């Protein structure tokens, strides 16, 4: 758990870094190791009944668009 935000969870290890933010029942999972990410997501799915929504597209009323130049954030 991060000191800066109690809904931010960070895991650092030799395998890489893993970051999870939680908004009640909505989670964003990120990190630099895709295999580790899938592993953590599978662990979460075992513990809770969860739906994997794939790549991040919407979060907290914000649209997230990935392009080669960077990430666009849109709020309407």
């Amino acid at each position: 758990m991060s000191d800066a935000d109690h809904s931010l969870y960070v895991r650092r290890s030799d395998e890489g870094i893993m970051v999870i933010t939680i908004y009640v029942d909505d989670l964003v999972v990120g990190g630099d190791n895709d295999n580790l990410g899938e592993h953590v997501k599978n662990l979460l799915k075992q513990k809770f009944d969860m739906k994997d929504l794939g790549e991040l597209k919407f979060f907290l009323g914000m649209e997230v668009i990935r392009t080669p130049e960077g990430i666009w954030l849109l709020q309407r």
Partner: protein
Amino acid sequence: MVAKNVGQQLQTLSGLQESPFSGSTNRPWSGRLHHNSSPTNIGDASYKGKEKVGEPLGMPNISARVVQDALVDKGYAQTHGIDYEETFAPVVKMATVRAVIAMAASRGWVLHQMDVKNAFLHGELQEEVYLDQPPGYEDMNHPYYVCKLRKALYGLK
């Protein structure tokens, strides 16, 4: 969530087919009805309807209005000082989310999204809470018996 694309909306609609209370461990109340002897912590049951527009399952090209009902506790009937406790939920700050997205952009991380189904059913109740029987599903022999809650419901405080 504010914005939803059609695919997500249909997923939500298909979710209507699953009963949230099907798994025995996730039933919100215990199997027995309880005699209404203690006057405290009895909530009124009511339904909270959410109307959604979309195509019914297996019937593409037909638009239908579907009413999704959720059994809720009438939390507003709870009284300050008697049965009113704080509620805690993890709420991430918008600045944190933007920071994580910025990290992902600069370091080329993949971002994934997940949500917990029926999150309220994961909360364990610490207190004894009873609920009137759901309207329309009363036991005719014991209409005034109450249900003992095993899991939290929306509207509980």
